[in-house]
């Protein structure tokens, strides 16, 4: 099983090679992968039909309770077959649609990776693995939508899809973590058993909200529906695959998969039913005002996804059955319609439904595929779409508040029927057509998809008995805990739902005939979208960008002192927090420890601090250097007073050297100048003094702690024994830590070379006019000490 999931990623890497070798046969060769996987999954049909659920656990992050466990039950199988089946046609189709595209190899690579992620998503039994695959579908869909990366609109749409679905993914991750907190496992199989714990958990409402956010972003539910129509910037095979058949159904899949875990409560119904209904109506309504074939299809897809969510929200056996049938029918006819729209675009160069017509005679095979799909979309007997719609109406009639839901469903049905016909019928039979070129049927690889998908929709509709027992019933069983007998829908004679079906068909027909006239009136409403959630997305993005820019300008000002102030203030704040938390008493720190100070020590400290102040306030270089020397000498005296003669000697020597160096090198500079305003100086002084104060406190606190004498003892004991030396500090430097000293000497040597070369290097000012850089004669500068 893991091979079946991973093979797509591996072959994705090989795809560019295959494309280069196979050339014209690319579509047929790449199509072998999904058809092979389709056959593999189809081989499980018997066992699944018998009611088995197959588990394939693979160890992954075992200590965290995260395994790469896969499960195959009715729901997974339905989706896996849909993914691989439609994937086959998409592979065939893409070779023709993108023939000669230089990046075809990359395209197939991303497509295979997407297919593998999608399979992983629907097969994972572990929530963490599911999340990983979920995000992988977002990432690969980003690559596929933005495939035409030189168009700005495509990049923008890809980013929008990624941000919206990615944000939803994060919400989902939070939900999964909460579920683990509440029920103690990431395995869906275990969560199903513990679902009573989850439903009574105080986290339940939060989990539902977060899961819904994740599912709603993926499945383009209101108010996140806007990304799906925008994603139509993608190449048509991508729209077919991702935005009609598989990826956007990911959210629906998740809700169906989790409904035995989380579903069946009032809260679940109260959220899902309104969400689905609003989305269904929004999609249906917005589809009416579109003229672009693909955007029409995208909006009706939004509507159909809304219907699926509505049906899952009801959560009854009948509604879940309706959901599965509707979902399958929609995948088949919508995939086919997208492919047709792509062919029409490919042949005529336009996707504007108002401009298209009379294509029926020019491309008869495409026309057949389109007609089959449009009839299924309209819900005409005996297509599978008819069955889906019947079941949808039935569920709304017997379920909750039928007075409200049934009219909504019928309204959506009318839009699906009418707009399906606008895409599938109008371009072929409308009397007028304004386009250029000589359209004709494309290569077999392209027309075989729509025709076969349409035929499958017809066959499933005719022989829905076997379909039910093989696919639909097992799928429904895996979404519901105690499934009773699931009846195969059959002819009930004349009843309300048939009347509703006929009504929506009639109204859909009317919509189709009057579409041109109607659209003109509806177009007035088109700008409403400007105030919709899409505008909110743009606004949020602008705000984020402005915030990032301002923040960058603040933190990356390019001024040393600003950086330093930020660093110092952060350090001071952190230390202050630590000191406050530890609740240090001031009297312990200072008052009781003042007694032991000797006069001469106090005098040295006073001289040191005075010299420091003089250094800071000095106006002339000479004063500053001398005062700095005094500071250094005082520090050396402090070392001397407190038992560090070696350090003191070094400090005396070094201080003398550095004063000389400063004198020689810097005395020729002009007087020290003041560049900053008094306000800036005050600010800097405040920052510096607070840092000094916190350091003082730090020293006081640290010196109250007992030190660990282990290291000192070691050196005290072993200095003579091991290293033959009585001066322990010296022994440490040249023996115990001899390599450190070697490193120190190296640093000094490097610094010396640096100093020497800087001194020897001629000034740029002198050299630049003389031609080649570094070519000019190096003039010895007289700054060397």
């Amino acid at each position: 099983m893991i091979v079946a999931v991973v093979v797509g990623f591996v072959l994705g890497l090989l795809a560019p090679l295959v494309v280069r070798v196979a050339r014209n046969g690319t579509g047929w060769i790449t199509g072998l992968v999904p058809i092979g996987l389709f056959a593999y999954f189809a081989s499980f049909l018997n066992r699944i039909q018998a009611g088995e659920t197959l588990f394939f656990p693979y160890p992954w992050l075992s200590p965290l309770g995260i395994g790469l466990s896969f499960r195959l039950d009715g729901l997974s199988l339905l989706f896996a077959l849909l993914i691989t089946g439609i994937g086959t046609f998409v592979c065939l189709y893409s070779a023709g649609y993108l023939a000669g595209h230089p990046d075809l190899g990359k395209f197939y690579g991303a497509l295979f990776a997407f297919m593998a992620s999608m399979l992983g998503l629907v097969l994972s039994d572990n929530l963490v693995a599911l999340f990983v695959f979920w995000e992988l579908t977002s990432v690969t869909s980003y690559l596929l939508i933005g495939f035409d990366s030189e168009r700005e609109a495509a990049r923008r749409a890809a980013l929008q899809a990624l941000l919206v679905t990615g944000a939803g993914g994060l919400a989902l991750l939070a939900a999964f973590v909460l579920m683990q907190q509440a029920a103690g496992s990431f395995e869906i199989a275990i969560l199903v058993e513990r679902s009573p714990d989850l439903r009574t958990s105080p986290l339940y409402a939060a989990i539902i909200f977060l899961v819904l956010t994740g599912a709603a972003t993926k499945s383009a539910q209101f108010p996140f529906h806007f990304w799906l129509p925008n994603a139509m910037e993608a190449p048509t095979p991508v729209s077919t695959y991702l935005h009609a058949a598989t990826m956007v159904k990911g959210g629906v899949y998740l809700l169906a998969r989790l409904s035995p875990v989380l579903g069946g409560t009032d809260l679940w119904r109260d959220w899902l039913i309104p969400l689905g209904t609003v989305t269904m109506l929004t999609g249906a309504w917005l589809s009416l005002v579109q003229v672009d074939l693909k955007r029409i299809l995208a909006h009706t897809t939004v509507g159909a996804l809304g219907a699926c969510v509505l049906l899952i929200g009801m959560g009854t056996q009948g509604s879940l059955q309706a959901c599965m049938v509707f979902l399958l029918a929609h995948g088949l006819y919508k995939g086919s319609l997208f492919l047709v729209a792509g062919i029409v675009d490919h042949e005529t160069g336009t996707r504007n439904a108002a401009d298209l017509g009379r294509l029926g005679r020019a491309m008869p095979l495409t026309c057949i595929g389109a007609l089959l799909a449009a009839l299924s979309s309209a819900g005409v007997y005996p297509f599978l779409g008819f069955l889906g719609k019947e079941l949808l109406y039935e569920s709304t009639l017997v379920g909750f508040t039928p007075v409200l839901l049934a009219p909504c469903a019928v309204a959506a049905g009318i839009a699906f029927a009418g707009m399906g016909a606008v895409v599938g019928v109008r371009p072929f039979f409308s009397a007028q057509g304004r386009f250029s070129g000589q359209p004709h049927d494309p290569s077999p690889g392209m027309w075989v998809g729509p025709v076969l998908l349409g035929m499958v929709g017809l066959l499933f509709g005719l022989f829905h008995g076997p379909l039910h027992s093989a696919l639909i019933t097992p799928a429904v069983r895996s979404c519901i805990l105690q499934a009773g007998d699931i009846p195969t829908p059959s002819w009930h004679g004349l009843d309300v739902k048939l009347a509703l079906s006929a009504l929506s068909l009639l109204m859909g027909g009317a919509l189709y005939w009057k579409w041109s006239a109607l659209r003109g009136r509806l177009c007035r409403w088109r700008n409403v979208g400007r105030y919709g959630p899409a505008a909110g997305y743009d606004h949020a993005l602008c705000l984020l960008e402005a915030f990032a820019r301002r923040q960058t300008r603040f933190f990356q000002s390019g001024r040393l002192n600003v950086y330093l102030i930020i660093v110092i203030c952060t350090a001071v704040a952190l230390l202050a927090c630590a000191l406050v938390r530890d609740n240090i008493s001031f009297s312990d720190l200072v008052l009781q420890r003042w007694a032991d100070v000797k006069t001469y020590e106090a005098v040295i400290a006073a001289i040191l601090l005075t010299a420091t102040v003089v250094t800071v306030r000095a106006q002339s270089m000479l004063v500053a250097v001398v005062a700095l020397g005094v500071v250094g000498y005082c520090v050396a005296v402090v070392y001397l007073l407190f038992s560090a003669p070696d350090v003191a000697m070094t400090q005396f020597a070094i201080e003398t050297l550095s004063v000389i160096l400063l004198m020689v090198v810097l005395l020729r500079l002009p007087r020290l100048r003041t560049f900053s305003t008094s306000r800036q100086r005050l600010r800097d002084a405040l920052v510096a003094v607070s840092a000094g104060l916190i350091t003082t406190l730090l020293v006081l606190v640290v010196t109250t702690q007992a030190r660990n004498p282990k290291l000192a003892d070691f050196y005290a004991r072993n200095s003579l024994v091991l290293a033959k030396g009585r001066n322990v500090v010296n022994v440490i430097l040249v023996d115990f830590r001899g390599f450190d000293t070697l490193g120190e000497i190296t640093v000094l040597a490097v610094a010396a070379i640096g100093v020497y070369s800087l001194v020897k290097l001629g000034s740029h000012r002198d050299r630049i006019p003389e031609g080649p850089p570094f070519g000019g004669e190096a003039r010895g500068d007289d700054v060397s000490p």
Partner: protein
Amino acid sequence: MTVEVELALTVGGLYAAGLYMVLRRSIVKLVIGLALLGHAANLLIFTMGGLVRGQPPLMHPWDTRLWGRFADPVPEALILTAIVIGFGVQAFAIVLIKRIYLDMGTEDLRELQSTDITP
């Protein structure tokens, strides 16, 4: 031994002065600030190592190890290294700013933000 209070104040004063100088726009003051910060850091380590009067970590010729109270040799060794390295850095910085001043004709950091030489 409670003389730490005095040294704590000294260290704080040195830190404040050093940081203030580092925040200046004059590159010369910046180098002076670095020198002050070096002193401050060394004294900080020294003080935290514990202060002992008149007991350097030296052995009498007749002893084979240090006995009784003695100043911790580890921070002393660290500081000794730090002083020398600090000097190397300071010497390099001093020559570098001299070079910068000669080439650019300014010691104001605000004017030294571009890598291109303005003629």
